């Protein structure tokens, strides 16, 4: 291997790619060659660093200088100053990476990273995901070698059991137990599947693992194959993740070329192959039986369980199905031991969890925290708080299946059981922060709109019930709510939870039930006072012009698409409420802040 004095790591995850990181990689390569130092400095395109808010992100080692929001125009200066002359370009550094005395902090001293612990994401943003050698250099395929040469299948399952790892896709089922259930049936053919159909809106944990460290998923699937006695694996990945799919294909190709995937792996006689199947945009395919139906080439509709996939799964054969992040923990558990993993987290939730932090938060991005970290630490320490000093209202976890966590539960340690006890759930890891400007009834309606659209239509509670709930929310947000609506919503929600066929339907009412539980006053304001306290629900708003502030410039009446504003130039203007369509265009355009909404 060649030796480089400095390495330029450029994030090429989806977030940074969207803001132009590929052009930055090319610019670095070009400038470094122009400067004649291409034998000394290596440019490494990596997976996600996590701090998507500041993308495109570039980190230069050995200094660990963290450059944020880099533009192509900045590259020549970084090359000539930093890489040639050794002078860090301070004004381009991420602002938080300088302390009060302007000293440069190393990456793990920055607030965003300080409280994080990277297990599933350990290689993301560190290695080049398209180069198997880099993965191997970071202990890649060592766990597979250990399993194949030193451990029995039973010992592998026992190790996963002892670690306390639980399914990271949302349900939290003990992974070791799942493996032992799939190990038991005697069958000539078994399958190992990976659920990479990450469909929760606002969640991109699995995508980041696949984009940043695809080999760790392949290796774990092989270990699972050895443990349960399977020779074929399938990864079911969203077609909407083109970068992840591309890197998976490259990884499979490289592993096959090196003999790490295919027949007689490590000369042990163990055979395993992995194929990719693309999802076609159906949220319900995240449910395990629906996912398997989709791999079988059919409509992705769930079916009743039992039989569970561990007994009768893909093509009628025993099948083990785990989520991407679950697999991403396996190799570390094998290498470091079950006790090491069980040493992190809370009593019933071991290890770490990756969250995609988004919404009204300063540091949008990907974070991995030990279980038991409090929500307050995630939002205020790691997430950097809420923009514009607005007040925190709720954090939504678990996507369309989860719920909203209000301010009184900010100090609850995050783990599977705690989140369920307060009416939400871990989910796959989306965490959306909302501030005082978000209307909770509107948010509940947003999620119901999603589930109504994504319901597969097989079972009536989900197909009809979620639609009825949506219609009631629509009525409330349009000012047609009546007393008794809340009770009806709660009753219907409970019935759907109890009677729907699969996880999608059983959890669909959660966003509504949890917002009613914690924000009942907001619902009541909509129903009884026909008022939206956050000023979001259009039908309940009225715009008015403050005669004190209005100077009569007429701009508002010119932008009003409904012709609802009239007045005389240089005198005050007024809004005709009967014509107003509440689009808010006037308020946006008024330079004197004379228009208010309430």
């Amino acid at each position, binding site marked *: 291997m060649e030796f480089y004095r400095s390495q330029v790591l450029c994030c090429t995850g989806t977030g940074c790619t969207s803001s132009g990181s590929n052009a930055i990689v090319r610019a670095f390569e070009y400038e470094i060659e122009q400067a004649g130092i291409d034998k000394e400095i290596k440019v490494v395109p990596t997976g996600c660093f996590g701090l998507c808010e500041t993308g495109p992100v570039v980190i230069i080692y050995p200094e660990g200088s963290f450059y944020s929001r880099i533009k192509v125009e900045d590259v020549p200066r970084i090359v000539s100053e930093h890489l040639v002359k050794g002078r860090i370009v301070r004004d381009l550094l991420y602002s938080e990476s300088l302390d009060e005395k302007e000293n440069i902090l190393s990456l793990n001293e920055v607030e965003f990273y300080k409280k994080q612990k990277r297990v599933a994401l350990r290689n993301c943003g560190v290695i080049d995901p398209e180069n198997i050698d880099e993965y191997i250099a970071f202990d890649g395929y060592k766990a597979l070698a250990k399993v194949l040469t030193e451990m029995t299948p039973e010992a592998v399952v026992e190790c996963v059991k002892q670690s306390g790892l639980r399914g990271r896709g949302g349900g939290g089922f003990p992974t070791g137990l799942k493996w032992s259930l799939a190990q038991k049936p005697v069958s000539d053919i078994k399958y190992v599947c990976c659920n990479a159909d990450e469909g929760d809106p606002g969640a991109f944990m699995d995508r980041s693992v696949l984009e940043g460290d695809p080999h760790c998923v392949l290796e774990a699937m092989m270990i699972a194959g050895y443990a349960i006695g399977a020779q074929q694996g399938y990864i079911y990945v969203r077609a909407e993740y083109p970068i992840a799919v591309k890197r998976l294909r490259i990884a499979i190709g490289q592993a096959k070329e090196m003999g790490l995937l295919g027949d007689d792996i490590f000369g042990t006689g163990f055979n395993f192959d992995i194929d990719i199947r693309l999802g076609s945009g159906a949220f319900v395919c995240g449910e395990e039986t629906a996912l398997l139906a989709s791999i079988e080439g059919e409509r992705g509709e769930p079916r009743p369980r039992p039989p569970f996939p561990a007994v009768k799964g893909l093509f009628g054969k025993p099948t083990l199905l785990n989520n991407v992040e679950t697999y991403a923990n396996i190799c570390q558990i094998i290498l470091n031991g079950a006790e090491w993993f069980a040493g992190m987290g809370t009593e019933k939730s071991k290890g770490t969890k990756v969250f995609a932090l988004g919404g009204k938060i300063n540091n949008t991005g990907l974070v991995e925290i030990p279980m038991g970290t409090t929500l307050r630490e995630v939002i205020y320490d790691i997430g950097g708080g809420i923009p514009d000093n607005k007040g925190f209202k709720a954090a939504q976890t678990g996507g369309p299946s989860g719920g909203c966590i209000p301010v009184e539960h900010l100090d609850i340690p995050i783990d599977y059981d705690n989140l369920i006890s307060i009416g939400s759930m871990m989910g796959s890891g989306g965490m*959306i922060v909302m501030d005082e400007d978000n209307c909770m009834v509107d948010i509940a309606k947003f999620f119901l709109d999603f589930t109504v659209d994504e319901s597969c239509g097989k079972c009536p509670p989900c197909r009809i019930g979620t639609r009825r709930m949506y219609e009631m929310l629509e009525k409330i947000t349009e000012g047609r709510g009546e007393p008794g609506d809340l009770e009806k919503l709660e009753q219907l929600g409970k019935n759907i939870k109890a009677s729907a066929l699969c996880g999608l339907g059983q959890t669909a009412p959660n966003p509504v039930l949890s917002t009613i539980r914690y924000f009942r006053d907001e619902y009541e304001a909509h129903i009884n006072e026909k008022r939206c306290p956050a000023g979001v629900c259009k039908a309940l708003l009225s715009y008015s012009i403050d005669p004190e502030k209005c100077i009569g410039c007429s701009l508002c009446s010119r932008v009003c698409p409904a012709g609802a504003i009239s007045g005389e130039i240089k005198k005050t203007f007024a809004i005709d409420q009967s014509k107003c369509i509440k689009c808010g265009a006037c308020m946006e355009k008024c330079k004197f802040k004379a228009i208010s909404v309430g």
Partner: protein
Amino acid sequence: MTNTSVLGGTRAEELDAAIARWKDEKGGLLPIMQQAQDICGCLNEDVQRYISEKTGHPLTTVYGIATFYSQFTLMPRGKYTVGMCMGTACYVRGGANVFTALQKATQVEPGQTTEDGLFTLEAMRCIGCCGLAPAMMVNGEVYGRLTPDDIPGIIEKYRKEG
């Protein structure tokens, strides 16, 4: 069949190759239809019948799959697919207002194509650029941190390119 039909030109041949590759593989129908969508631009009745005849799967099965997955379209799309991210992060940061501006600029509803065949407007599931919220995608190119005011200019840019 003329060159302008969705199965015209070399498309039928390309589709034949995809069918040959997947026909005998277990669960191969979905990959065939995914490739057909890419090759032909849509799965209209002609394409569905073609797949049904060549694979032996009943037309009802093919139609059932084509209408189940949101990635498949039964009508040809416009030259530019404008997808507004409707993920939660974009929504709480004002994505709905940007979407209204898009509908105004293109004069079509979500799921429809403009009369000149230039734009198809779509509400997309999370595109995973939550750091850029609210975000939209035009044929794979991402536009982030949008306000309703940005929209007319972006749409106009594509209109000029034709």
